[in-house]
C-alpha cells in the first residue's frame, strides 16, 4: 500500500505539495479504457452545480477551466495560456489558440464571459456564485478576458481553477440543451453515453488542447453506491479503480496483491453548534465539548485508524499556515470539560440533541462515541438520526442544537475559513445569525493580502480567535481513499480541497499498462 498522509492542508495545497512517493518515470502507453466505480450516483452533469465527488471527476474529464491544478497541486495554465494581475483584485487572461469544444466550435473569450456570468446568475444555482459575486467580466478581444473583483481577493485564481468554474459554449447553451444530461466541453474526454445515476461512457477527445493527451481511449464510469458491491467489483476485476474506499476496507484492500490503495485527508469531521442559541452561545460550553471528546477512540472505532485526531484548527503540518502550538489545544481532558461547564453555570450538566446523518457508519459511530464521552462530563446527548435531506434542511433553517458534520475543504486557500465562519456565508453562520466582528476583520485582512509571510501571520490570528470562541469543535481528519489495480499508472491522490478532484486531475495522464 502506497500511502501518503499528505493531507488536507486547505492552506498550502496549491503552494507546497508533498513529494510524490514512487511515481515512476515510465513511458506511458496509449489505449485502453479505464473502468471506474464511483460512490456518487451522478444525477446531473450541470457543470456549475456540484453534486458529489464523481461529478468533479466527470467535469474535469468533460470540461476545462481557465486555470487548473497539476498533480503537484500547483496552479497551472489550462484554457488560459498566460495571465497578468494588474492589481490584487483583477486578472487578465490570454486564452490558448485553437481550442475547440467537442462540437467543433472554437472557444473564445465570449464563452468565458458567458460561463462566468452563468455562475453569477441566481437562476443557475451555481455552487461558486458567492465566490464570483460582484465580479465584472470584460471581453477585451477574442483571446483576452478581464475579471475584476470590487475588493482584492487572494482566492480568485484558486476559485477559477475549480471544476465548478468550467467553461461552456455560449452558442451551444443558446440552443437550450438539457445540461443536466448532455455535455459539450473542451476537456480530454467526450460524453458518449450517459444514464443518470447508473453510468457514463466517455471517449477520447482527439482534439484535446494538450498535445498527445489523453492516453486512455475512454473512461467508463459505473456508479456503484453500495460499498460492498464497489469493493467486490474491484476485487473481481470488473472495474479498474474505485473511489471512496470504505474505511473498514482500506487496510484489507491494501494487502491484496495487485491492488494499490492511496489515501489522503480530504475532509474533516466537526461538531456544529447552534452558536447563537443558549446554552451553546457561551464559548465555555462549546469548549467543554471540545475537551470532552476522545478523538483517538473515534479515529480507531469509526475510521479504523484512518482518521487523524484534530486537536487544533484544520490545517495540516505540511502547510505553511500550520502552527504547532495551536495543534494541541484541545487534548482529551474531561476534568477541564467539567470545570468549564461548572464555570458557565451548568454544574449539573445539560441535555442536548445531537443531530447526525444516518447514511454512513462513520457518522453514526462518531456520534455514539461522542454521546458516551459527553455523558462522562454530565452532558446527556440524545442522538437524532437524520436523512441527508433533513440534515440540509435543519442546517439551512438553523433548526438544531448540535450537528455532527463532515466538511470537505472548500478552497485550497486558508480563506476557506470565510466560507465556513463569515457572517454572510450561508454555509453555516448566516442561518443561525452568527457573527464575530474580530474574526470578520481578520478574514477580510487575510483575503486582501498577497504576501505569504504576512498572510501566515494573519491566519495565525484567525485560528487563535477560532479556538478561543470555538464555534465548531474540530474532531478529526477523514482520509479519503482510492483503490486501483496495479496496471493503472500515473495516479496520485492529493489531499484537502483537491482530494475529490484528484482522479479528474490525473485522468488525462492516466494509462493502463
Amino acid at each position: 500500500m502506497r500511502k501518503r498522509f499528505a493531507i488536507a492542508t486547505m492552506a498550502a495545497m496549491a503552494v507546497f505539495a508533498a513529494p510524490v512517493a514512487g511515481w515512476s518515470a515510465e513511458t506511458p502507453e496509449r489505449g485502453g479504457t479505464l473502468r471506474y466505480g464511483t460512490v456518487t450516483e451522478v444525477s446531473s452533469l450541470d457543470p456549475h452545480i456540484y453534486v458529489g465527488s464523481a461529478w468533479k471527476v466527470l467535469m474535469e474529464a468533460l470540461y476545462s477551466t481557465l486555470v487548473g491544478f497539476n498533480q503537484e497541486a500547483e496552479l497551472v495554465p489550462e484554457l488560459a495560456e498566460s495571465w497578468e494581475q494588474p492589481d490584487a483584485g483583477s486578472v487578465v487572461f490570454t486564452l490558448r489558440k485553437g481550442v475547440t469544444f467537442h462540437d467543433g466550435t472554437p472557444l473564445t473569450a465570449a464563452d468565458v464571459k458567458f460561463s462566468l456570468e452563468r455562475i453569477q446568475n441566481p437562476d443557475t444555482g451555481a455552487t461558486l456564485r458567492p465566490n464570483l459575486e460582484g465580479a465584472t467580466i470584460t471581453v477585451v478581444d477574442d483571446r483576452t478576458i478581464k475579471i475584476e473583483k470590487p475588493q482584492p481577493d487572494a482566492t480568485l485564481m484558486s476559485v477559477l481553477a475549480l471544476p465548478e468554474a468550467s467553461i461552456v459554449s455560449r452558442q451551444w447553451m443558446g440552443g437550450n440543451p438539457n445540461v443536466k444530461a448532455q455535455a459539450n466541453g473542451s476537456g480530454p474526454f467526450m460524453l458518449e453515453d450517459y444514464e443518470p445515476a447508473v453510468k457514463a461512457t466517455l471517449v477520447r477527445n482527439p482534439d484535446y488542447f494538450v498535445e498527445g493527451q489523453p492516453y486512455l481511449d475512454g473512461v467508463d464510469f459505473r456508479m456503484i453506491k453500495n460499498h460492498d458491491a464497489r469493493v467486490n467489483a474491484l476485487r473481481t476485476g470488473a472495474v479498474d479503480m474505485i473511489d471512496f474506499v470504505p474505511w473498514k476496507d482500506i487496510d484489507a484492500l491494501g494487502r491484496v496483491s495487485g491492488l494499490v490503495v492511496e489515501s489522503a485527508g480530504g475532509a474533516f469531521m466537526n461538531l456544529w453548534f447552534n452558536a447563537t442559541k443558549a446554552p451553546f452561545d457561551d464559548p465555555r460550553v462549546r469548549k467543554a465539548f471540545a475537551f470532552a471528546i476522545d478523538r483517538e477512540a473515534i479515529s480507531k472505532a469509526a475510521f479504523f485508524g484512518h482518521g487523524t485526531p484534530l486537536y487544533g484548527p484544520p490545517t495540516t503540518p505540511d502547510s505553511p499556515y500550520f502552527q504547532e502550538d495551536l495543534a494541541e489545544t484541545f487534548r482529551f481532558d474531561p476534568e477541564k470539560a467539567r470545570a468549564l461547564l461548572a464555570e458557565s453555570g451548568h454544574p449539573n450538566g445539560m441535555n442536548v440533541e445531537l443531530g447526525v446523518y444516518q447514511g454512513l457508519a462513520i457518522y453514526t459511530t462518531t456520534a455514539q462515541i461522542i454521546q458516551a464521552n459527553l455523558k462522562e462530563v454530565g452532558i446527556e446527548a440524545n442522538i437524532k438520526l437524520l436523512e441527508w435531506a433533513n440534515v440540509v434542511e435543519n442546517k439551512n433553517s438553523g433548526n438544531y442544537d448540535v450537528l455532527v458534520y463532515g466538511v470537505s475543504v472548500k478552497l485550497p486557500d486558508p480563506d476557506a475559513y470565510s466560507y465556513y465562519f463569515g457572517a454572510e456565508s450561508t454555509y453555516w453562520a448566516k442561518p443561525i445569525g452568527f457573527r464575530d466582528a474580530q474574526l470578520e476583520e481578520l478574514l477580510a485582512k487575510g483575503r486582501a493580502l498577497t504576501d505569504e509571510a504576512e498572510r501566515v501571520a494573519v491566519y495565525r490570528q484567525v485560528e487563535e480567535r477560532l479556538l478561543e470562541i470555538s464555534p465548531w469543535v474540530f474532531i478529526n481528519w477523514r482520509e479519503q481513499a482510492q483503490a486501483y489495480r496495479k496496471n493503472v499508472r500515473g495516479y496520485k491522490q492529493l489531499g484537502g480541497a483537491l482530494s475529490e478532484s484528484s482522479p479528474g486531475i490525473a485522468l488525462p495522464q492516466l494509462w493502463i499498462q
Partner: protein
Amino acid sequence: MVKFLGRRLAASAFMIAIAATIVFFSVHLLPGDPVLILLGEQGAADAEVVARLRAQLNLDAPLYQQYLDWLGGLFSGDLGKSLQTGLPVAEEVLRRIPRSLELIVAGLAFAILLGIPMGVVAARRRAAPAGLAVSAVAVAGFSAPVFVTGILLVIVFSLWLGILPSSGYVAFGADPLGHLAAGLMPALTIGINFMGVVTRMTRASLTEVLRRDFVRAARARGLSHRAAIRRHALPNALVPVVAILGVRAGNLLGGTVIIESLFDWPGLSSLLVSACFARDYPMIQGALLAIFVLFAFISLVADLIQSFIDPRMRTGR
C-alpha cells in the same frame, strides 16, 4: 368471464387512482426540500437562489394546482420531468421496469419449478427424511434475509469461483450472455427466498386437501395415489399458492431495494429509493404509479389463474 374481467379492471383503475392521489399528497408532505438537495450543501443556503429555482420547477404553485397539472399530464401520458435530471419521468420508469420484471419473473420461475415439486414431496413424506430435508431447505430459503443469501452467492460464485460478475447491469442488446450472467445471482436471490414460500405453502395446502373427501373418492375410483394428487389434489392445493405468489411478486416491484443495491442492478426499486432521498417528487410519483399499475396487473393475472384453476372464483359463489 368478460364480466368478471371488466369488474376487476374497473376495480383496479379505481384503486390506482386513489393510491396515486394519496401518493401525490403524501410525498409533498415529507420533510425535506428537493430544491435544497438539487443545489447541494453549498448552493442551497442562498434564499434568493432557492426561491428562483423553486419557481422554475413550478414547486411554488399551490399544491392543488400542482396536482391538477400532474393529473392533466397523466391523461396525455406525460408523467412530468425529473427534478434531478431534467429528463422525462416516463422514459426513466420505462427503462427500469423491464429490468425489475425480468429479475422477478426469473426468480418466480425458479421458485415455482423447484418449490412446487418440493412442496409435494414435503406433503407426501412429512415424517420421512426426504420431507424433512425439503422442509429444512424451504425454511432456510425464506427465513434467510436476502442480503445474506446474496452475499453468500457473491462470495461463492464471484470471489471464490470467479465465474459470475459480482454486480452490475449489462444491456441485453450489448451483450446477451453478459446480461444473463449479470442477472443470474440477483434472480437467484429472489428465487431462493420465493422458493421457500412456495414449498411451505404447497406443503401446507396439499396436506389439507389430501384429507378431503374428493381425494378419497378419487382413490376409491381406482386412481393411483400419484394420479389422485396430480389430477385432483394439486390443482385445488395450488389456489392459495397462486394467491400468495401474486401478492409477493407485486411486493417485489418496489421491494427489491436490498437486492438491487447489493448487485448494483439499476431497477425500479433503486430508482424509487434514490428519488425518495432526493425528494424528486415527479419521479417518486411516476415510479409508484408504475408499481401500482403493475401490481394491479399482476393481481389480475393471479386472479385469472386462480379462476382458471377454481371456477367458483369466476362466479363469486
